[in-house]
């Protein structure tokens, strides 16, 4: 009997910092096992080898910011059986989506000496806004253990166990004293999805939202609490306009404060 063919894995990059695909190489203890379980068919950051599609699993990092990106992601979709987006850029447009709320032409003029050389869309958007995806991993950057869990689940034909509840739950479990209730520091934890391991509250600071909105977040309630803690409207708006600025719930809350 022929040996089972190893699943073909491809890793793709759009507008991003490389940190999420680096998380795969950061799985130092598991990397050789992962490489043993899959065929790395396309992973430009790690290898010159380029094996033609179709691919069993595509991991996509980065956001869509140019007309060419849209063409490219459509081609990748066609060649991929399962397509998983990884990180805040791919799932929500990333920090560069802050430009969605500003005049892009003036930004290019401000940044480049020769604006005519630059080809860019006015927006930075999530992969899911352009093609259907089978799953997404949140985070800026993603949590490498969630990545391993997702790969494991895909290879074994089961659903990945990735929580969608609030960061607060993870933080309580870690035994942290609440930085907002007890420390009076603004914290995005109540509206942000768990997954990072409560890193900021564990370091005596409020969560700043790397993992994007949890399911059904009450952003209005958090915004009014932030105001009670002394934050101005502008800064409350900016708290939602960061690494997941274009995620729907955060975009809407940010818009409200822009208008005030």
């Amino acid at each position, binding site marked *: 009997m022929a040996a089972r063919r190893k699943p073909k894995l491809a890793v793709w*990059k759009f*507008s*991003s*910092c*490389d*940190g*999420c695909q*680096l*998380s795969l*190489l*950061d799985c*130092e*203890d598991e*990397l*050789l096992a992962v*490489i043993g379980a899959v065929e*790395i068919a396309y992973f*430009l*950051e*790690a*290898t*010159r*080898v380029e094996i033609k599609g179709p691919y069993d699993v595509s991991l996509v990092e980065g956001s869509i*910011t*140019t007309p060419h*990106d849209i063409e490219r992601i459509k081609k990748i979709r066609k060649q991929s059986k399962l397509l998983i987006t990884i990180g805040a850029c791919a799932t929500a447009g*990333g*920090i*560069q989506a*802050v*430009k969605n709320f*500003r005049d892009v032409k*003036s*930004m*290019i*003029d*401000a*940044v*480049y*000496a*020769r604006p005519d*050389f*630059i080809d*860019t869309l006015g927006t*930075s958007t999530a992969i899911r806004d352009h093609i259907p995806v089978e799953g997404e991993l949140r985070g*800026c*950057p993603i949590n490498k253990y969630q990545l391993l869990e997702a790969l494991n689940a895909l290879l074994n034909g089961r659903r990945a166990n990735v929580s969608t509840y609030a960061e607060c739950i993870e933080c309580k479990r870690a035994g942290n004293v609440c930085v907002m209730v007890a420390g009076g520091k603004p914290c995005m934890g109540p509206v942000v999805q768990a997954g*990072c391991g409560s*890193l*900021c509250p*564990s*370091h*005596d*600071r409020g969560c*700043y939202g*790397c993992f994007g909105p949890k399911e059904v977040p009450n952003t209005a309630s958090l915004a009014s609490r932030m105001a009670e803690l002394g934050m101005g409207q*502008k*800064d409350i708006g*900016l708290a939602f306009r*960061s690494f997941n600025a274009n995620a729907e719930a955060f975009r809407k809350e940010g818009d409200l404060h822009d208008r005030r």
Partner: protein
Amino acid sequence: MTAVEALTSNAPPRIIKVDALARVEGEGALYVRVKDDVVRDVKFRIFEPPRFFEALLRGRMFWDAPDITSRICGICPIAYTMGASHAMEMALGVEVNDPGLVLLRRLLYCGEWLQSHVLHTYLLHAPDFLGYEDAIEIAKNHPGVVEKALRMKKLGNEILEIVGGRAVHPVNTKVGGFYKAPSKAKVRHLIEPLKQAIEDSIDTIRLFSTFTFPDYEDDYTFVALSHPDEYAIERGTIKNNRGLDIPVTQFEEHYDEEHVQHSNALHGVYKDEKYGPAYMVGPLARYAINYQQLTPLCKQMAKEAGLGTVERNPFKSLTVRAVETLYSCQEALRLAEAYEEPERASLEIVPRAGRGHGCTEAPRGICYHRYDLDDEGRILTARIVPPTAQNQKIMEKDLWGVVEKNLKLTDEKLKWRCEQAIRNYDPCISCATHFLKLTIDRD
């Protein structure tokens, strides 16, 4: 084709193209045109789309700068969190000089050097010298080598986690110091693994010294930070190898960037004609300028590996990075052993208007930041000049020279040699495009 070329021959030009460069961080391409055995054009093209960081920082509070600029690069976030913090501290009129905090910052940076250098040398660059497509092939043929590399890289990430709170985009660094100082016990956990990493680094230097290095040298203008007390990493003045030594505040008087059509990253240029326009930052520059401050063990290993006190063969940056890896392990060990928890994790800061500059040695070379703040502490303008932008001109110059020297190679081999020459610089293309010059404030 120019008229002169058309007259000289009817032979078709020889084109070497790499549409998407592998084993680098970000999206880049190469283009070389040769006609009648003469190199006519060389382009290192960066097509990674711009992310407009400098524009999107405007209007945000000063404390956002380290967290936001860190997202320029997932491989060297400390170069951004720390450069931004230093610049903000200058703008706000405070200085972090508590010995415990200074120690923690340097220890954190050693972690970044260790993980970034090991990632680059073993996983991205060494395959070129061994004729392998990637480190996966190294792992198949020499499993122990890759296991050792991963062990070292993991330790670098552990330093980042213990001091910085996270390996990629650390959460614990801030303007004025840290949110929370790590416990002495946690830092002491690093000591035994660091002793092992020193042994591993020595093996690494010995392994790399057995590689064959392509023959190429240039009389580079090297630029690096320099500090009287230490091999400069997170602080110092900006020095070149031709006698110029300036404070960080004068960076923009001597260095500029130009916008070229074939790249989304601005090209760094030396304004002083006698030094430029192309110059080199990174390990070869640091090594040439600060060699005397390396540890005796680093000097001994460098000598054993056949390195001089100045290295002008860019392919040997591989071995120089391995020497710096050894240095960062030795330095991290010294710092971890000396660590005492500081009384306060950070300085108190009162917002005010001002301008501040910051510059640190990212693994790939100096990374410069400058910000202007209004009296509330909001960012008015930002400028960041990352190392890969500064190296672009010299990378193209190297490519030109390397092609000229290797015209006899087949197209496939020449292409690979060109890729290897680019990888000498460990180019971080994400960095290069993510910081773009802000010339005019048009709000």
